[in-house]
């Protein structure tokens, strides 16, 4: 089994895509060609180069915090009922 075949088999199992035998054989050959085609990119000297993850500058787009008065009573509005200092939960049915 070549490196490409081994890698392909692993990739197909990992991504869980159904392919028949003839397609898998074709993909074996294609993956081998593809990996060879990438060789010039590996030869580029990037020793002093950082990785990037975006094509353009990105700024924080989180909405501005909007503060308001709250309180324990408001927070507990959505909470389960409580009694005697404990929240009441449904009984466990065995």
């Amino acid at each position, binding site marked *: 089994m070549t490196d490409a075949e081994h890698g*392909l088999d*692993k990739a197909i199992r990992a991504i869980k895509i159904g*392919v028949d035998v003839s397609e898998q054989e074709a993909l074996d050959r294609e993956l081998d060609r*593809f990996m060879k085609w990438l060789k010039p990119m*590996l030869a580029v000297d990037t020793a002093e180069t950082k990785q990037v993850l975006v*094509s*353009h500058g*990105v700024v924080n*787009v989180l909405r501005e915090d909007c503060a308001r008065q709250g309180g324990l009573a408001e927070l507990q509005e959505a909470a389960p009922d409580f009694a005697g200092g404990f929240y009441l939960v449904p009984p466990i049915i065995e």
Partner: protein
Amino acid sequence: MELRKISIRQAAETVNSGEVTAEGLIEKTLESCSILNEGLNIFTQIAGIDALEQAKAIDRKIEKGEKLPLAGVPVTVKDDLCYGVLPTGFGSPAFKEFFSPYTATAVERLMDAGAIVVGKTNLDDMSMGSTTASSPDGPTINPWDPERTAGSAGAAAVATGICMLALESDSGGALRQGASHCGVIGLRPTAGQVSRYGLNTFCSSFGQVGVTAISGENVITALEVIAGFDERDASTAVCKERAAGAGTAVDTEGLRIGYPAAAFDHLEPGLREVFEQAREQYSAAGFECIDLELPLLPEALQAYYVISLAESSSNHSRFDGIRFGAVEEAGDLEELYSKSRGSILGREARRRSIFGTHLLSQGSYDLYYRQALRVWNLVRREFAAALGQCDLLMLPAAKTLPGRAAAEADFLDAWTEDLFCAPVSLTGLPSLCLPAGQAGKFPVGLQLIGRPFSEGIMAAVCDRMIREIELFPYGIS
């Protein structure tokens, strides 16, 4: 009213003034859509009654005194953009009947401005490709030659004059190569100019929404409508810090255009001459054409494929028959995933997803993926340095003439067609494709690449050169 002979603004004015009704305009457009679709396979869906209802609604608004910038303008929408009114197929048979619960921001903005969606256009398998050759519905035929593919269905729609505007997507060059092969104008805007909310892109880093039309003025009119911050797409935050759109009117006198002569060696025989002639024409028109180099184009293309395939592996994992897509009958969960994914994704999407998974696996990740991220950085720097020497860069859009519709291209040959477009996608820079000349009977397009948010300059140069070269009208009758 012949749509190819007037601008979008003029068409909207005739509708706004009541000279023509939107309903009348769309009725005629829909007739042309049906007739031309039989031969060219442009549409996955023609809007029919829905488009007429939209048109009537626009007419009612105008009767009440509203003026809309795109009143009654017929547009097509590529079928990877969600549109709640028609099924959104993503280029997969599994989504033929899928109605998106929401509409993409760009489509919504066009409609709010009065444009009418007349249909959804054909695309490659899960939008993976630049030819429509892998579409489950078969390729869109080039209006210039029935034996060839169009590149993009939206470009074919604009070239035939059945619509004024096509809303499209572009990752590695589908929009730009389509414009090149059909002899129309295609704009891939600056990354972040246009919201991608509602776009099903296979690679999040490079997929953009763009427009195709018959002139630079028309693409800019559309860009002004669809550009701008959208809180549902974080990448549009760049528009928070500056006004979105094309900017103010520009003077094109004395602009310097960078010409990377060595890059043109990669072209199919016979095409180089078209660009040499284009260079002479641009010089004669008063532009200063300067020589420069972009030596990393081939490696940039390889980096694009490593990153985009890795992202497609991740993005397509949600199409598993449970979260999205039709579920197949199976004996257990593993088999269910495998069978469902196998049927949702076509041959090309399966290939890219599997290769992408391989690239992300142990052993490949450090060697290939990380290296691709570093090459991406170098490519960005290379283009920035080139644009430090000139105002615009000139590159071809396609390596070859459009492919034969009946022939199945080798996958690697098809991928290397993106040699001139994919590297630009890595930079996030705007790119406008316009006709450069002809090779035989085929139009050949060139890309003008500018600095971020320089779409207005590129469009002004485009319209000036169209007048100077007198290549138009390029539409097909």
